């Protein structure tokens, strides 16, 4: 039972991440390889605000969102001057830079030692410690964020993003500024990722920089591409598929040493096959360009 609850919590956290990334990848049409940056910054900011400044959970999360938003602005402003391959490699560059900083700024982040003993969230005097309680808090945040994102997807802003994705020059001619709109989308996506980071940090109560590497960014992009981008169902399908797949392998009785590599191999193979047979993902609408 606890095992299923754990899986549901992880699915909740990854759904927040992939719905946020969907705004950039699916609606903006930009392959971003630095989503784990905002996930990581969120986790570290929330942890440090709670442990060093002694803030309660909710104010800490709000401040985290603000801090990550500013970081996303700093990253997005130069990165969004590029499209296509250049955008991919610039976001990849930021991913590597932020990881290096998290890993080596030992005074702030304790670097490779990680931060243990992160307190559980306390809301209105009630501490969320057990798994069912934690499930409630994660899915509450997920539903809140999903509602906001679904409104954004349908809003004139979301439609303008789609227009820019499909034909940037034409949309610009209609007065939709790619500079502003892509930047807003990037910042919103970063902010949602930071909430997931805060939830993750308080859930596992230990974080270190290796949770937020380039591999994690690639994994998040894979989740989204497998599920499909540019609509509301795609990220859900992708997250459920990618989180449950390794667990299915575990039931097949694979030894752990083999299972990790076998899982990765299946991810790789899935990506190749998808590009051949269904470039828009299992449930997606938009084909990556």
């Amino acid at each position: 039972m606890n095992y299923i609850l754990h899986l549901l919590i992880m699915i909740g956290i990854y759904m927040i991440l992939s719905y946020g990334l969907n705004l950039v990848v699916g609606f903006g049409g930009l392959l971003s390889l630095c989503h784990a940056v905002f996930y990581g910054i969120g986790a570290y900011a929330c942890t440090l605000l709670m442990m060093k400044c002694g803030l309660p959970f909710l104010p800490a999360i709000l401040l985290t969102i603000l801090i990550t938003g500013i970081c996303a602005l700093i990253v997005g402003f130069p990165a969004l001057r590029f499209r296509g391959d250049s955008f991919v490699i610039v976001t990849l560059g930021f991913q590597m830079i932020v990881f290096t900083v998290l890993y080596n700024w030992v005074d702030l982040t304790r670097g490779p030692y990680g931060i243990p003993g992160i307190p559980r969230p306390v809301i209105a005097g009630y501490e969320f410690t057990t798994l069912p309680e934690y499930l409630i808090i994660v899915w509450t945040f997920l539903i809140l964020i999903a509602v906001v994102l679904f409104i954004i997807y349908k809003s004139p802003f979301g439609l303008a993003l789609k227009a820019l994705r499909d034909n940037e020059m034409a949309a610009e001619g209609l007065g939709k500024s790619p500079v502003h709109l892509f930047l807003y989308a990037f910042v919103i996506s970063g902010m949602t990722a930071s909430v997931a980071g805060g939830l993750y940090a308080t859930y596992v109560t230990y974080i270190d920089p290796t949770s937020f590497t380039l591999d994690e960014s690639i994994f998040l992009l894979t989740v989204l591409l497998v599920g499909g981008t540019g609509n509301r169902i795609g990220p859900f399908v992708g997250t459920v598929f990618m989180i449950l797949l390794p667990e299915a392998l575990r039931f097949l009785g694979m030894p752990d040493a083999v299972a990790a590599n076998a899982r990765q191999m299946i991810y790789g193979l899935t990506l190749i096959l998808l590009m051949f047979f269904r470039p828009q993902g299992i449930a997606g609408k938009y084909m990556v360009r």
Partner: protein
Amino acid sequence: MTLLLQLILNGIVNAAIYSLLAVGFGLVYRSLRFFYIAFGAVYIVASYAVFALANMAGLPLLVSIILGLLIGAISGVVMDKSVYLPLEKRSASTGVLFIASLGIYILVVNLVALFFGNEVKILSMGIEPSFSIGTLVVTRMQVVQFFVGWIVVIGFWFIIRKNNLMKGIWAMGETPDLVVVLGLPYKFMRMLVFALSSVFAGIASLLTALDVGIDPHVGMHALLTGAVAVLVGGVDVYRGWIGGAVLLAVLQSIAVWQFSARWNDLITFGILIITLLFRPQGLFSPKRRREER
């Protein structure tokens, strides 16, 4: 002062390896115009092939190196034939090729890890003899790296300067459709590009692996080094790839001198982002007119 000279010397040796990586990545990136992440996979395939042949099957090192490079080249060509070429025929976008390439990278790296394990494999045993020039110290492996790397890279430069096939490959990057119209052997040129790129990756990987060993996850770093060198120096000119590689290696050495080796990634990608922002065509490319782009 001795330390700085020593570090610059190390930088020049590293530059030879970085140039190999840059040429390997640049060949594909310049002529097919997609971000070739599977380069990182080819990089480890060659070294692991040599490891399997020399250390497990017991073949002489020289024979296994030649066979290893061949296996690397074949693996690169097979990747193209099985994935990129079919995708290209469906006129797939660069994004799709990038993702498929990422898929290949993940698949191959984990396949290798499954067979050989995730830990570092050592190709050559024993302590490398070292020489001293004045106050500077170089190991035998560094001498080999320096000469092999620079001879291959500069030799290749002379070969491609007057070679019509190479001009065709260069033209493939500008207008791929026209290549077929002109009757140039499109498929053969593609094969050649992938084979050459894999050989360059293989040489670089062997030169590194014989020195410090290899593990399945170093491919990504090699790929990124090559890619950053190409993009910093300029995609369109061969001298840019070399220039980018030398610049990167020397700056990393100076960074080690000033700060610490841990901040190397920061330097590498900092240079990349700053270059792309302020000189998107690369440091060594001539400025192109707007209508040429």
